[in-house]
């Protein structure tokens, strides 16, 4: 049994995962159950370090050979037992007299179980193939990178999931349960489903969210259609045809979509007020395409340049007109790009807030962004606000997950805008 730098690294890694997971899972346990779970971070680190040591000193450590998952499980079990024993030893006073285990103790045990199950898997992944002796720099860096990646996955997952989780859970709660314990984001399965969905029901009946959904859909779809009608010919001309001013045009497209909406909002507000277009959906349907067309032209022209021109030339030689070539050859070939651009534009229009906020005063024509914003007042309970946020989010996310491939392509091509 050699004890070199890797042994100490294993101690540190064990302690690190013990620390990270006990915090993450305690918070998760609190949010799911609504009970207070106070983790003992020190004990968890100590137990984790012990588990890491057991793991790295264990059998099957012959250089590079796969160390079985069973040994990871063993080290995890050791750490878990260490944690439970130490935990109750430290707070032996707090165990109830008759020796029965209360719910909170169950929760502590459950949290510890999950913590060390995941922690043992993590240190297994970090230390796989290493023995407890001294390692060369290469191996040490491999360990370091594995640890960093592990931390990265936990960090990004928690940080991305947290707001969405809180959004959905809050929207399902009732006013008094939120006030009595803001951390209690559990779902009480004994209650009927309708009770959980009360906020949604109220939004659709009392706050006209059905109309908001419809308005958003109309505006977004109209924006997509108008944008495509304008951008496809424009992009085709810029990428394929020769005419004076072509280069200037092609370059200035990028410039134009750098112009922020907030700079345009004052003059547009002024002019649209005079024209009577301000408080109308038509006003939005005019403004949105104008701000999305440059992006769309930029994306399409990149795609058109990538298409082999020979195909179009063949079409021209066979007697098709230019328009015929575009309709019969270029467009069918561009369907993936059209899908990407459409989804991307739809997303921009659906999520747009500034113009909707500035232009729309009449609740009958609110889009979802504007509608959710109007819920942000002290008189309206926050679970309504969160339910509104969920209603606004779900369609985009469903669309995104459904067409992820296209949307990711669109994002990479056009997401210079944001």
């Amino acid at each position, binding site marked *: 049994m050699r004890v070199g730098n890797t042994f100490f690294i294993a101690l540190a890694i064990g302690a690190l995962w013990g620390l990270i997971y006990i915090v993450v899972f305690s918070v998760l346990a609190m949010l799911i159950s609504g009970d207070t779970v106070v983790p003992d971070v020190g004990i968890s680190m100590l137990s984790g370090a012990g588990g890491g040591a057991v793991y790295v000193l264990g059998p099957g450590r012959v250089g590079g050979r796969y160390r079985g998952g069973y040994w990871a499980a063993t080290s995890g079990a050791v750490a878990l037992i260490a944690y439970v024993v130490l935990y109750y030893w430290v707070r032996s006073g707090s165990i109830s007299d008759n020796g029965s285990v209360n719910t909170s103790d169950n929760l502590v045990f459950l949290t510890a179980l999950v913590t060390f199950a995941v922690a043992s898997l993590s240190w297994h992944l970090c230390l796989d193939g290493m023995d407890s002796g001294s390692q060369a720099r290469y191996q040490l860096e491999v360990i370091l990178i594995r640890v960093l990646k592990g931390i990265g996955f936990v960090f990004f997952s928690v940080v991305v999931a947290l707001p969405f989780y809180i959004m959905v859970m809050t929207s399902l709660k009732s006013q008094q349960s939120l006030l009595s314990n803001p951390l209690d984001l559990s779902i009480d399965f004994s209650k009927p489903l309708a009770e959980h969905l009360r906020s949604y029901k109220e939004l659709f009946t009392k706050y006209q969210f059905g109309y908001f959904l419809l308005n958003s859909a109309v505006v977004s779809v109209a924006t997509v259609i108008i944008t495509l009608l304008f951008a496809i010919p424009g992009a085709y*001309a810029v990428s394929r045809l020769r005419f004076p001013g072509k280069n200037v045009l092609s370059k200035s497209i990028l410039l134009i979509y750098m112009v922020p909406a*907030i700079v345009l909002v004052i003059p547009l507000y002024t002019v649209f007020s005079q024209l009577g277009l301000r408080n109308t959906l038509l006003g939005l349907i005019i403004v949105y395409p104008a701000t999305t067309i440059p992006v769309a032209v930029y994306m399409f022209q990149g795609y058109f340049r990538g298409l082999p021109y020979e195909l179009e030339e063949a079409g021209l030689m066979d007697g098709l007109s230019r328009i015929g070539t575009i309709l019969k050859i270029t467009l069918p070939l561009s369907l993936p790009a059209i899908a990407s651009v459409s989804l991307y534009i739809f997303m921009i229009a659906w999520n747009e807030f500034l113009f909707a906020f500035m232009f729309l005063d009449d609740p009958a024509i609110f889009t979802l962004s504007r509608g959710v914003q109007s819920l942000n007042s002290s008189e309206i309970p926050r679970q309504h606000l969160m339910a509104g946020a969920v209603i606004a989010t779900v369609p985009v996310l469903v669309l995104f997950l459904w067409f992820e491939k296209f949307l990711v392509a669109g994002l990479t091509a056009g997401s210079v805008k944001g």
Partner: protein
Amino acid sequence: MITPGRANQSRQLPAARPPKGRGPLGRGEMRLAYTMVLPTLLIVMAIVLLPLAANFWISFKPVELGDLRAPTILFNERIRPAPQAVGDSAEISYRLRNTSKRGEFADAVLTDSFPAGLTIDGTLDSRCTLQGESLSCNLGTYEPLQRETLTIGVIATQAYVDEPINPRDSKPVITGKGDSILTNSVFSLKNYRKVFSGSEFWKVLRVSLYYTVFGTVGAIVFGLFAAQLLNTTFPGRGIVRGFYLFPYVAPVIAVAFAWVLILDAGPGGTLNAILMKIGATDGPINFLGRRATPVSVFGFTFNFPVALTTVISFEVWRYFPLSFLFILARMQSVSSDTYEAAEMDGATPLQQFRYISLPQLAGILAVIFLLRFIWTFNKFDDIFLLTGGAAGTRTLTVDIYEQAFAVSNLGAGAAVAVVVFFVLLISALFIFKFSPDDDG
């Protein structure tokens, strides 16, 4: 046999050149191109370029939100007392008022039909003329908010008593020129003086720069980190990638309010509740409302901007997916041969990252930095929804809104917008100078 002279002659023929100018085909192509580009050009002109120009115009005007309605004359017409019998005298009165607080209404002309059964009692107001049943009054100029009552004494005749016509049944028409501050020729530098005077502007500019620089760099660093995570293959990688894009894809309104709820300093704030439950803090931290808190590091005490940091973190959270997507796409196009060769030569993982990955990514990182820099500088919704520009988070873009719509001084807002525009113009020129050609 070819004589030398002939050979010389053939050499003197003009070399073949492409024809000068455009042939008919070229002209056709040009016409088609212009037809295809024109609609795009027009709508972009109308909604982007014209407003930009209008911004300059408005920024030189002392115009406020209330001035958007052009001055009009509001009127109220009545006849009193109502004539009952022949010979009763009464008064038709028009109460007139210029509704605008600041714009005058010039050349006001009132025309109305005069009830047939009434005759003028005494003399008609000198500004008015009555021709048959048509009354026309030349009222001249109304100052802002000026009010006046125009009265005409009348006597009822038999025709009126037989068939009383209420003068109110015919609506008077008032024509004239409402002087709108937006279109008149009054210009002033008041807005610019207001914007640049005082320390407020420079504070806002500084906040804007902090926000932009740290937001951009943060998003790129975290994006690079996330891209490293997903550059290996493992089961469920596609799902994780999609999941990490959520912050960017979801509507800003939804995620901003979710974070406001989490960071709330009141009793409902999730993060503060957690921190207090596990004993990390004594009282709630007002993440979005606290301007600064003194922090002492190694004996140095400085004011740590709490709200600004929170807002920047939100920006990083929301936009790391973008840089992550870009960087991942670029990384996947780097061939694995280079890494294999480096591996053979004994390069450690960190060395591989430092000497192979980073140089390969330098180009895309620079592009993302410049573009994100501009877009972060332009960002309005995020800050507005999180803090509304309070607690030291007012950037230039929020300032535009605050000046124009919260203080309802459109001109001052436009002046800030002009400043923003120039900052952007400089950045854009910078991009053009340094951006690589067409390979983003």
